[in-house]
């Protein structure tokens, strides 16, 4: 992974936004947020977030310290000033003294400290950004980092990969507790340039947008280098039945089986998007697919995004690609029945 920073492009962005009254801090924040957001190996569909600590004018013309942080519903790849709502920084930092803060209280507090009352909800990771002392904070769910921390010995692998350059934060659901935990890790190791959050992602921080961005690229590149160097095995292919059906022949069967999930009288339907590539084929044709595909989602945010897209539980269902319609249908029914029996569905209906 290489840095795509360009002084000329950064300056052009700053000049362009200056014309509509956006300060240079926010403009350069937009520039590197888009750089990060346009790389699917770093963030996907509304994932990740960034912030900058700057100043904003209040009603009385006074400059106030604020945190401009990615707002809910915005995509990093196409962020605009409206997607980086300004929140008063001092009240955010004061919450660090609290022993506990519920999610509902936190969201309410964030909203009540917005400069613009119509702004979108600031990210649920706002407090984490606010508690860090650095001016620019970048957060992604880099694939290479997830491959390292989605391991039983994630902490050891992080220590080995990044030496003392990053702090390790054990898994905690985002919100006040995670923010305090992350701030404590940074306070203990003031020299670190980033944080790796177990089963979640990576933060980098610095005093300039360029440095925070390039630290992200450098750390993710180190994770990528480890993945390339430490391969100890590859997925063992399963013996596939022959001949195989075509994606077009299977799609209507899959679609029909998914429609069968809806309660009687409800004719809800789904559409399908088919994907294949050498990497996908190696994965779906692995002898152990039923194990590794069912262990869970790669990070916490993906569970949420997938659920939102599917408006329901996200889970992998495995069917055989054999050219036998009845077998495919049976396998799908089994998979979908298991999905309906999953504990979360019951709680959902309760």
């Amino acid at each position, binding site marked *: 992974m290489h840095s795509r920073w360009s002084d000329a492009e950064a300056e052009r962005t700053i000049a362009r936004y200056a014309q509509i009254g956006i300060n240079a801090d926010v403009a350069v924040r937009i520039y590197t947020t888009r750089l990060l957001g346009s790389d699917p190996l770093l963030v*996907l569909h509304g994932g990740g977030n960034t912030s900058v600590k700057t100043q904003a004018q209040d009603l009385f013309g006074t400059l106030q310290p604020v945190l401009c942080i990615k707002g809910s519903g915005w995509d990093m790849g196409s962020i605009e000033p409206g997607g980086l709502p300004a929140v008063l920084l001092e009240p955010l930092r004061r919450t660090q003294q609290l022993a506990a803060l519920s*999610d*509902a209280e936190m969201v309410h507090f964030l909203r009540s400290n917005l400069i613009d009352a119509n702004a979108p909800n600031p990210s649920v990771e706002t407090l984490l950004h606010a508690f860090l002392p650095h001016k620019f904070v970048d957060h992604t769910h880099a*694939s*290479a980092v997830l*491959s*390292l921390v*989605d*391991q*039983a010995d994630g902490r050891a692998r992080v220590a080995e990969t990044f030496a003392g350059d990053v702090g390790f934060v054990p898994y905690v*659901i985002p919100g006040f507790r995670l923010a305090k935990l992350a701030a404590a890790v940074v306070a203990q190791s003031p020299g670190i340039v980033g944080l790796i959050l177990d*089963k979640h992602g990576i933060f980098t921080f610095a005093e300039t947008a360029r440095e925070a961005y390039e630290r992200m690229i450098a750390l993710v590149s180190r994770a990528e280098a*480890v993945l390339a160097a*430490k391969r*100890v*095995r590859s997925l063992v292919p*399963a013996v*596939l039945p022959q001949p*195989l059906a*075509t*994606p*077009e022949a299977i799609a*209507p*069967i*899959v*679609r*029909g089986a998914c429609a069968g999930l809806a309660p009687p009288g409800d*004719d*809800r*339907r*789904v*559409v*399908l*998007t*088919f*994907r294949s*590539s050498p990497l*996908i*084929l190696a*994965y*779906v044709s*692995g002898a152990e697919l039923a194990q*590794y595909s069912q*262990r*869970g*989602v*790669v*990070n*916490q945010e*993906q*569970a*949420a*995004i*997938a*659920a939102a*897209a*599917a408006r329901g539980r*996200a889970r992998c*269902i495995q069917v055989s690609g054999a050219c036998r319609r009845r077998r495919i249908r049976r396998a799908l029914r089994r998979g979908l029945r298991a999905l309906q029996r999953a504990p*979360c569905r019951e709680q959902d209906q309760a």
Partner: protein
Amino acid sequence: MVLVPGIGLYGVGSSPAASAIVADLAENAVRVVSDAEAIGRFEPLCEADAFDVEYWSLEQAKLKGAAVKRFAGHVVLVTGAGSGIGRATAQAFAAEGASVAALDSDGAAALRVAEEVGGLALACDVTKDRALADAFGKLVARFGGLDILVSNAGAAWQGRIGEVSDAALRASFELNFFAHQAAAKAAVHLLQQQGTGGVLLFNISKQAVNPGPDFGPYGLPKAATLALMRQYAIDYGREGIRANGVNADRVRTGLLSDEMLAKRAAARGLSETAYMAGNLLQREVTAADVARAFVALAKARATTGHVVTVDGGNTAAALR
């Protein structure tokens, strides 16, 4: 997401955009898990923590608000969608959340309408079997299947029935009858694969029951298409496949051009304005009115083998 060994993966969602997001996440998961397995063993967030995130109040809040439209996730194929009634019908179904394939022999027109409705453009002459099979292949590749066919493509041929050339009459039968049969047959095959039931909607014409003078080459195949609709209703009702039709009349479209309008008005001995509003409601019928009838028939769960007239009221064209 659905994983198929030897084939690939399907993202599943209530719209092409939603299913593409799922597919993107799936591709990313494939990368992360493959690399994790290559260096050790993939050990993700445990089920309980993943559950907490998914059912987290802050994430659930994001799911609220967006009302699900009636035809979200439904796939609608409209033939002759490039203009007139077809275009209005594509728009009407898209407005109800459907994923729409706009098929037309005029590829540029299909593309325009597909862009309007955020759907798939299919350039296809429905009288050509090979082209129609290709179009259905593209439909399945894009959306995964079909729920509602609006078999609408048609064109008008005129001539006094004893004088019309065999070639013209046969050409009209190709488009106004056999192409309906070809599209319905392909649609039924897909619906059977899905096992979901579905809807076949035919743009017939009041000519099928109330023929006009010198309009036999158009009315005869349309009468056959009315019978075709009923035959599908009879033969496939037990599989939950409904077949219905719309008899529209005097709708200003590419088919009823100004020139044609002048001729038809003259044939009835009326002025053009009187001809267009020559119905019980004394108002001109629009393509959007016809589109609404198609949507209503798609929603009418217990209705099959039925024809809805959209002609402003014409007792001579009433079905008996």
